[in-house]
């Protein structure tokens, strides 16, 4: 279990997701990586039923990661950006089924990232296509460096690796998840979260990154559909690549 970084890959115009995945897999295989199975990360969201007193509705996200098959990850979002996370046994899913009185499942927003898994020395690279209810949303690339557990020690190497096989520029700063983020705390003030690039990396961090990316994909749906009110207030910072990348045509060698 090492440092894992998620990199959304911007889709160029005119090319389908399957073509991109195929293209990237060929590049990885020619580099010398070996195909090592499939992976799946999925996320299901439960919204709490509206209560008296006008308390904001809370969302419970339940995620699974095939890299940790014995665990179920769960994150509670209470609308102000504060998240409470939990790692539990797989039996947690059955527990959620019992909670239908308090939480309603929103099947429409079940989102997953699925694809092939490649092992290349100390790296594990996963090319995932993100789908929500059978609609293709984008491509997420996950890269894990197994030998290191602190991002600041190996960020440069991961960046070099990514640039090498993706063929696109990766910004020098740490990914958004690892830098300081501002959230609204309970009193309505902005509060800076502690920067994570010097902390020990945990499997929960991978899952939180996935949740962040999935939420972005969901918001794009909302924006495209017609601006239906968002489900929850998200952190103010948006990862620059996911928005900017959509419009920029990538000139690749």
């Amino acid at each position, binding site marked *: 279990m090492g440092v894992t970084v998620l990199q959304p890959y911007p889709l160029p115009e005119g090319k389908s997701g399957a073509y991109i995945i195929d293209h990237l897999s060929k590049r990885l295989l020619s580099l010398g990586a070996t195909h090592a199975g499939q992976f799946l990360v999925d996320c299901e969201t439960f919204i709490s039923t509206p209560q008296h007193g006008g308390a904001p509705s809370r969302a419970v996200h339940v995620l699974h990661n095939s*890299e*940790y098959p*014995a665990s179920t990850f769960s994150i509670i979002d209470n609308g102000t950006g504060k998240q409470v996370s939990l790692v539990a046994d797989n039996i947690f899913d059955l527990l959620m089924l019992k909670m239908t009185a308090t939480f309603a499942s929103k099947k429409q927003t079940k989102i997953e990232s699925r694809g092939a898994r490649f092992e290349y020395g100390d790296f594990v690279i996963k090319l995932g296509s993100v789908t929500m209810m059978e609609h293709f949303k984008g491509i997420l690339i996950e890269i894990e460096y197994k030998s290191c557990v602190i991002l600041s020690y190996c960020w440069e190497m991961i960046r070099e690796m990514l640039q090498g096989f993706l063929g696109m520029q990766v910004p020098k700063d740490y990914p958004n998840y690892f830098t300081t983020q501002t959230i609204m705390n309970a009193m309505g003030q902005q509060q800076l979260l502690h920067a994570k690039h010097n902390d020990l990396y945990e499997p929960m961090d991978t899952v939180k990154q996935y949740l962040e990316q999935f939420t972005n994909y969901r918001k794009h749906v909302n924006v495209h559909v017609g601006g239906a009110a968002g489900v929850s207030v998200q952190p103010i910072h948006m990862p620059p690549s996911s928005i900017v990348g959509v419009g920029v045509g990538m000139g690749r060698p």
Partner: protein
Amino acid sequence: MSANSVNISVETTCENQIREIGYDGTELYQPPPTLSESLAKCAARIDFSKTSLDDLKKEEKSATEAEESRDKDGNQFQESLWPWDAVRNKLKDAFTEICVLSDVISIAKDKRYLVLDPLLEDGDDTKPIVQVYSRKKAISQAAQVLLGGAERLRNAHSEQRSRNISDFHIELLRLRQNWRLKKVSNAIIGDLSYRTAGSKFNMSGTFEVTKAEELADDDQLQGQNSSSSSSSTANGMPIKAASALRVIVPAELQGVAYIKVITQKDQEDLCSAQVNLMGHGPNITAQVGVWQKTLEFAQNVLFCKELFAQLAREAIQLQAPIPHVVIGNQIRATLLPNIQLIISLCHSTTFDSSQPAPINDHDHVLEHSLHQLLREVHYKNSHHPFPHPSSAPLGPSKKRMMAGPMAADRETLMDMTKSQTILEQIIAQAQHIFMRKRTQYVLDTLARDVKDPQIVSHWNAMNSPTMSCVKINIVTHGYDAIGRTSLVIHVKERSLKCICRDGRVMRLSYEPQELRDLILCQINSHQISCLVSLARCMAWTVLSNSNHLGIGKVEPLGNASSCLLASPNGDRMIAVQIRCDPQIDVKVYIAKSPRQDFFPNPLVPEKLWENLGGSFKEVRFDKIEGKSFLNKMEFLMASLTSNTA
């Protein structure tokens, strides 16, 4: 009944008493008393002591009764009698008794047929002396009973002490303290198997306990001794008294068994081991009797049989590159090419007093390991980790239960499912023992043969059954502070891993030659690196050094290393080349500047070119004074350093 009249109903108010209120609020009313009940109520109020009024009331009552009874039907009349019936009977009885009493008194007054005599009163209390006598008699009778019992006990006790043979029951008590016994109909059956400790072996380990036969005369006594204390003759000690009980063990568990483990290399014994649960020598205390040893031997036989059966089963099921061979009571497994591990079950049922002494050079470690491995299997069978929470399934180990909340990844989960059989484990341990012995042998012979830098090896005191570590220091005597080459070698089951000080990791196979070559190469580089440090101490300049010199003949082993030194004032140069083919071969050359043999010639006319050094002359290094290479180099450098500034 005319249309204008109004029907009026008159009802009593329902003022009945509530008898009971149901749980749902319904009220049960006591029905109003029937007329007969009210009559009984009134009759009960009659006080028969008042006679004058009684008759009056009686007449009244009877009158009302007659009135009412006429209104009712026959049944009612009958029922109204019942409350009176008791009263009437009682009156009748009383009247009868009074009549009888008056008759008796009148007859007694006549004194012709009946006389009344006064009752004799009891006399005064008996005299105290009578009481004393009666109590004394009672107590003496009780004393008689107690004395009789005590006499009997004393007789039994003295009888016991006079006999040499201990009581059956005492022996049984001792037996029961050590072994599990139970009574089945008339016989006493015991269990010496490991079933309650977690074993799943089919062979039953039940034995029977019986009383020893009565001893008629001395000959029979001797015969009894030899037959019932059969296993004790192994000690050579004569047992004076046979025990009062005899244990009968099943035929297949009689005798003595042990498991012999031998590592064989091409028919030669390298090391051997013996599994034997018994302590050697006369450890058995005489107090517990001869049956203890019999039972312990039988239990040992059972344990060895179970162990061997388990190993044989695994040997057949396991897929090894060279298949294991099971013949009769022997299992052959291959550890390394030409090295075999032979495990055999030796079960001897004949009791010869000259039992062979245990093999003196056997290895206790493998013996103990086999014993521990089977006990570990037993333990896992009987102890299951308790799940937290208690509703979780019973079965997965604690590590597996924590794998979910701790986000264990796939490799960890896969590793949890792998488990090794006893045979695999003992093969791994035997392989490791063999590798360790071989590595020790290589290091020791190298340390003996190579005198110049000294090879010091420190083995870790703590190691696991399948891995040991050794740290090797290569130092030159007298120059420890100058430099030292260290490396760590991890000895595993079939391979070695060598980690050098600069971080290089090399993996070697089980061939001893590879380790030897590695150490020789390390010696090579040690000499040069120490020489470089020594030169600095002597103020000589290191012009260049190289660990992988690519000149000269191709070396059969490693690479040649070299070093080029210049004296403090630059007029002398030393070139050293060390090769490894396979003895360490040192060549030293020196050059002088200015050259002695430079003569100006038309091609190179100026005299100043004599300062260009370069003609090296070889030094007969073996003739130089000095205990070691570094010592000789130090002397050489010292002699070549000139005084001029």
